[in-house]
Structures are given as C-alpha cells and as structure tokens.
C-alpha cells in the first residue's frame, strides 16, 4: 500500500536489471506493448483495466499486456531502460530520473492533482494542512519529501514533530493525536473500513502539486513511435471515461487480482479519487491532459529544492496532442 | 537464592584421618556386573593400594568410596576415632587425583590449585596463600603463573596433586594418577606422594596397575580378580625404609612376587 515499501525494495530490482542498456529505438513498434503498473491493481489503474476489458486497446490495433506491479518493482527504470514500453510513474520521478540519465516522456496523467495527502483523525482540531503545520502535532512521513520542505517554507513548522513513517497504519489507528502521510484513495479508506474516521488534506496545499499516475515511456521509444503513443493515449482516455462513469465492474476484476483490497473498498476509493482525475484542464483538453505550465512549475520547484539541477524543456518530458517530442 | 551463593567456608570439621569400611558392596551397569559383594576395610591413616587387571571394577569401587556412585547392595561407611561419620561430612574431607590432570585450561597453576578453596568460599587472601604453599610443596614455584598447555605431563600432575592437597584432605582417593607418565617421572611422583603421606598422614586409597608402585606406596595391598571385582588377596606391606635403594631390595621384590602371582592366578582362573 504505502510508497515506503515500494521504494524499500527497489534496490533489489535495480541490480537485477542485467544487460543494462537503453532501448534500441530503431525497432518497429512491437505487436505486444507492455504496460508496467507501479503497484498492485487498484482504483489508481481503474481506467487502464477498463480500457483493456472493453477492448479499447484492440480497437486501436494494439495488443497491450498489463503487468502488475508491487513492492520491488522499479517501474520508472523499467520504462527508461526499455524493458517495458510504458510504465505508470510519478510526475516528480520523471524529472528526477531525467536528472540521473533516465529519459522518460509522459503521455497521460491520471491524476491532475497529486493524491499524496496527510490524514488526521476526524476528532482532531485541524481543518487544513496550514493549521496542522503551525501546531506542535506529530506527523509521520517519509524522509526528505519535497512537499514537506515546501510546507516548512510556507508555514514554518518550527514546533511540528516529524517522525518516521513506520510502514503501517497501526500506530496511526491507535493514536488519535498522530497525523500521517497517505494516499487519499488508500489508507483513509482502509481505516474507514476498520471504523476509524479521518480527515484528509491533500499535499497540494503546500504548492507542490506534480502530476501523478503518469503513463510514461522512454524518450527513445516516444521519438520512434509517436503514433503508438497517441493510440495508447486515446485508448486510455476512453477507458478512464468508462471507469469514471461506472467503476464497479472493473473494481470487481481488480479485486479478484488484489487480495489486499476488497471490491467495497475499491468502490469507495474510486469515488474519493474522482475529483483528482477531473479538472478544468481535462474538461478543456481531455482526460489525462498535461500542460507545459504545470510541468515547468514542478520543475522549477524541484530545482529550487535542489532535487534537480537543470530544467528540461517541457517537450522533453511530456507529450500531449499530435506534436512529436524534440 | 541459595543456589547462587557459594557454600559457607568450612573450617576443617575433621582433623584426623578417618577409616572407610565397604560392607559387601555390589554394582552393575546394565548387564555388566562390575563389583560383586566386596568387603573392604581401610584403616585411618593407612595407605591402601587396589591392584587388578584393566576393567576389573576397581575404579567403580573407588567411585563408590568417593560417594560418586551408589552401591546397589551393601553400603560404605566412614568412621573416625569416635565412631561413624555422616557421609556428607566425610565427603567434604576427600580429595581426588585422576589419571588426567583435569586442569582448567584457561587458568594458570595458581588459579587451578585454589579452585577447591574457591568453590568452598574461602576468601581470596587465605586461598592464595594456601595455594602457594601447596605449589611450593610440589616444587612448582617457578611455574605458578604458567598455564596447563605450557607445562609438561609431569608438572601438570604435580599441579593436580597440589590442588588435591590444598584442602588439607583427610582422605585421598587416587585413580591411576601416574599411569600416563614415563617411568622416571612416575617414580619421582611416587616419592613425592609418599612424602606427602608421611607428612600429612591422610588416609589414602590408590587404584593402580603397577605392582611396584603399590608396594612402594601402600601399607596394605589388595589384589582383585578380573570383572566382577572380587578380593583375591590382601597383604600388609611393611618396608624397612623408603630410600633410593628400597625398590631393588629383596623384601621389596618378595612383596612384588606375591602380589604378581596372586594377580596372575586370578587372571588365569577367570579365563578357565
């Protein structure tokens, strides 16, 4: 469930990648396209599975293999090195991996707003991240997060106590004074089903709001296969449209593949994530849309935080519309 | 917790050597009968040698005298001038010498010699003093701070003997202590053991293969048959002197002959 476990096992995946080389761009688009998820099947990927079930990829003449992720799956590296054609990654990851030499290009952004959030118990007195940050509460989160630094800059946080995440929700459930990092569609839902009510504040309040759930491919592949990228995007849009209208049947399919989350929980999660998927941008440009402005914004913030040194040109990191990159 | 505290140091509760009487003791191990109905009397202050072929059960008998093994029938009794002594009291005045020196390899000679006193709770000043005295008696002064692996076989046995006398025992039980040593060293240590006995006058029971050793050391020799151990012969030994020449004297050889013959006969009869 939590990102902390995803990262913790990436070290093994890194070194298992043998024959590390960038994908050869001169191959024609293979008939089977591998799409690597960065976690187990859950509502985050609802539109993808919906597109698959309804045959939208097939309609575009594509044979797509959806590969489940989980702890230990280094999805960004797999796409950047060409082991898979597409992978679901975080927007921030596209920028930091690019800095480290792994060039990814995003073709579809599931989340217009970052689903990363901070949860507090429903009984807690705080009504916003600002109030929380200015207090002397205790917040459990991973180390060195960009949005945490930005919150500290914005709201001070001198008396706030930041503690390690701990890897589970048990401590949070037991302590009504604790705040904890979460994904808006995951931990709060699990807690609700245990009978613990929460209030959830999205981290975008910090001003740091990268795209997330970005389906990306290596720069080389995008350059060589712009039509395929466009086709994948179209199929995804149709799949997400379908999922947003009626998530239930896709949730049933995903629940069967994921013993850790019930269909009931997935239904709730699907509802919770909907406002993050639809936005004025998606109204105007279509589901999954990305703008250069948003990307530049995120890149500049990361540069200021010292996480990247050079600002990439927007067209080097995402692809929207019909224009090919570079 | 009582089990964690060392026992209170005992002042010698018995100052005189005591006698042991084994009344018809028997012992078997599974199917094997080691000792059958042995009656043995060891007078206070005497030096008794138990002679017999290998595996005849004399070590088992010695262990019963030590209170380590219990006889299945019969009993072992300890007596001083006034009468019977409780076994528990008697056992506290016993020291042992085995064929292996059984020294703690991580302790030096002093540490090993003082071990019985340490286990008895004797305070460190007193026990060091007594240990050094015992070491000096055994001629180990120069080697006091050496550890067992730095000592020769003979010196290790001396250290074991020093440990045995440091408690001022009233009864010494020796199980072929010099069996693993060469003849020259063996004779040297026999001389020293004799000297110790003359000075301290403890009761001693020695199990040995060596008839010459038995004749030299003991005031009474007991010859056993092969297993199960039965007494074949008891002979009082009185030597005119214990000097360098005694081992080649006629009276010495006479004793040796008598005991050897008894031993041989016992072996022959058991084979018949």
């Amino acid at each position, binding site marked *: 469930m939590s990102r902390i476990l995803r990262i*913790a096992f990436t070290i093994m995946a890194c070194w298992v990648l043998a024959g590390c*080389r960038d994908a050869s761009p001169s191959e024609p688009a293979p008939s089977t396209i591998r799409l690597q998820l960065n976690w187990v099947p859950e509502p985050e990927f609802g539109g993808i599975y919906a597109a698959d079930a309804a045959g939208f990829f097939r309609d575009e003449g594509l044979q797509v293999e959806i590969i489940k992720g989980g702890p230990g799956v280094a999805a960004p590296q797999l796409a950047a090195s060409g082991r898979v054609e597409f992978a679901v990654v975080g927007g921030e990851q596209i920028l930091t991996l690019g800095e480290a030499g792994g060039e990814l290009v995003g073709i579809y952004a599931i989340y217009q707003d970052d689903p990363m959030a901070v949860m507090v118990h429903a009984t807690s007195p705080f009504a916003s991240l600002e109030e929380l940050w200015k207090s002397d509460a205790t917040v459990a989160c991973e180390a*060195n997060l960009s949005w945490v630094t930005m919150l500290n800059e914005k709201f001070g946080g001198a008396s706030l106590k*930041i503690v390690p995440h*701990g*890897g589970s929700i*048990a401590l949070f459930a037991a302590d009504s004074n604790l705040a904890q990092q979460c994904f808006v569609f995951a931990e709060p839902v699990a807690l609700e089903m245990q009978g613990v009510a929460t209030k959830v504040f999205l981290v975008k309040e910090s001003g740091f709001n990268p795209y997330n759930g970005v389906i990306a491919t290596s720069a080389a592949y995008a350059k060589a296969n712009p039509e395929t990228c466009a086709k994948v995007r179209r199929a995804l849009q149709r799949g997400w449209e379908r999922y947003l209208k009626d998530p239930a049947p896709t949730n049933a399919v995903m629940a069967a593949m994921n013993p850790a989350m019930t269909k009931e929980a997935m239904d709730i999660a699907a509802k919770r994530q909907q406002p993050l998927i639809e936005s004025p941008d998606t109204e105007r440009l279509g589901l999954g849309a990305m703008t250069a402005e948003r990307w530049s914004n995120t890149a500049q913030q990361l540069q200021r935080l010292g996480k990247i040194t050079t600002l990439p040109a927007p067209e080097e990191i995402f692809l929207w519309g019909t224009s090919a990159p570079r | 917790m009582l089990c964690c505290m060392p026992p209170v140091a005992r002042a010698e509760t018995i100052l005189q050597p005591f006698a042991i009487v084994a009344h018809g003791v028997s012992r078997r191990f599974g199917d094997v009968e080691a000792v059958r109905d042995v009656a043995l009397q060891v007078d206070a202050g005497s030096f008794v040698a138990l002679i017999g072929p290998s595996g005849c059960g004399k070590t088992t008998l010695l262990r019963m005298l030590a209170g*380590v093994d219990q006889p299945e029938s019969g009993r072992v009794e300890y007596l001083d001038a006034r009468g019977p002594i409780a076994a528990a009291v008697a056992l506290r005045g016993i020291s042992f010498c085995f064929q292996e020196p059984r020294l703690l390899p991580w302790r030096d000679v002093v540490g090993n010699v003082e071990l019985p006193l340490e286990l008895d709770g004797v305070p460190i000043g007193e026990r060091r003093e007594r240990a050094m005295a015992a070491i000096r008696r055994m001629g180990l002064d120069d080697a006091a701070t050496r550890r067992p692996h730095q000592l020769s076989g003979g010196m290790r046995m001396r250290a074991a003997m020093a440990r045995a006398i440091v408690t001022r025992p009233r009864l010494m039980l020796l199980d072929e202590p010099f069996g693993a040593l060469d003849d020259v060293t063996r004779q040297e240590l026999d001389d020293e053991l004799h000297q110790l006995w003359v000075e301290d006058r403890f009761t001693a029971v020695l199990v040995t293969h060596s008839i010459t050793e038995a004749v030299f050391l003991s005031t009474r020799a007991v010859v056993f048959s092969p297993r199960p151990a039965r007494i074949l012969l008891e002979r009082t030994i009185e030597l005119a002197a214990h000097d360098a020449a005694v081992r080649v004297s006629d009276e010495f050889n006479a004793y040796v002959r008598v005991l050897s013959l008894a031993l041989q006969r016992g072996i022959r009869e058991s084979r018949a």
Partner: protein
Amino acid sequence: MKHRSLALLPPLIAIAAALLLWEIAVRALNVPAYLLPPPSRVAVALWDDRAALAMSTMRTASATLAGFLIAAVLGIVIGSLLSTSRRLERGLYPLTLLFQMVPLVAIAPLLVIWLGNGIRTVIASSAVVAIFPVIANTLSGLRSADPHLDELFTLHHATRWQRWFKLGLPSAVPSMLTGCRIAAGLATIGAVVGEFVAGFGGASAPLGIVIMTSLREFRTEKVFAAVALASLVGFALFGIVNGAAHVAARRYAA
C-alpha cells in the same frame, strides 16, 4: 608485522581489479548512471557529501554497536538459560529459530508498533537479527564443556551458578565469540533495515534513510556510497570482535 601486511595484498589487488573492471564495463557499455554508476561517480558522491555521510555513518554505527552488544549479552544469557534443562531447550529453541526465520522487513514495522520510532527501534531491529547465532553458539559451547572437568566440579560440590560461571562460560568462550563474529555482520543489516522504517530524516539521517531517499531520487551513486559505508561499519565491528576472539582464543583455548 611485515608478513601480516603482505597477506592483505591479494584481496586488495582483487578489489582494485574488480573496481577497474566495473569502471571500464560501465563506460564501454554506456550504462546509464541511474542503473549502475561507475565507481568514480560513487567516489565523487562519497567525497562531495563527506561531512553529512560521516555523521550518517556514525549514527548507523552507534545503533549497530548498541544492537550488537544487546544481542551478545542477551544471547549469552538466553543460551545459558536454555542450557540448564533439555526440556527447556527443546521447548524454546524452535521459537528462537522461528524468530530468526521471519524476514526482518516483516518484523521491522511490528517493532515500530511496539517500540515507537527512532533509534530504539533501530537498535531493537539490529539486536533481533543478531541474537540468534549468539544463542545457538553459546548453547553448543556450554554443552561441549569437558565432562572430566564437569565431574571435577561435581566432586567439589559446586553450585549451579559456580558451574556456569567458572566452568561453563569459560569453556564456551571460543564458541560464543564465533557466534559474536556472525552477529556483528547481522547487526549492521538489522540496523539499516530498522532505519528504513524507523529512521529519522533530516540533516544527519542515518545510512538507512540516506539509502531510501537516494533510491527515491534515483541517485544510485549515493545509494552505493551509503551501502559501502554500511558495509564498512559491518567490517569494523567484525574486525573488533575478531580481534577480541583471537585474544580470547589464546587465553581460553585448551
């Protein structure tokens, strides 16, 4: 002295050769840095951040040392307790074995729940991993005491405590130190994994956190640097224990 340092030469040459091969291979095959950085980049990362990394190493080292000491002492105590009765041993030994088999990454979040965040849990994590070889080796060492010496103690009416402290423990010292040698390496791993879940971030984050954040930011050379430093901690601890073992061997060996 000269002889001893010459013995170091073959492994040093081997390591240098391996590093050279690594450097050449990565450059020749054009391996991107985020997958496998060349040793030169790792060295640069070590140098650039040397102050912060030094502090991180100290933090991990102190947690490792504490975890190791707890494992050593507790391991000897538990091993001694188990040696007092065969029934106890048969009953509890499988439990300790089970504790050893469960993967640490599963135990670590549980430790956080029981002990909270921070260095307490890191030390506990380190101790949990390191304790089993000490228990096992103490137990076997105590059971292997010379039976002749055991009888000697019986004849001198030694109490149980005297027997354990004056005969059992000294006999078991070589074995216990072997267990401690193994525990030294495990304590390091335990500390780092504990830091994954319970380590505090910030300016002087311990090596486990450095690894986590560097992974998240795809700074693979920094991951390698932190891992190398963690290994160094393990080697140092092993070296100390090994040295102690050699000294003890001379004193306690038969």
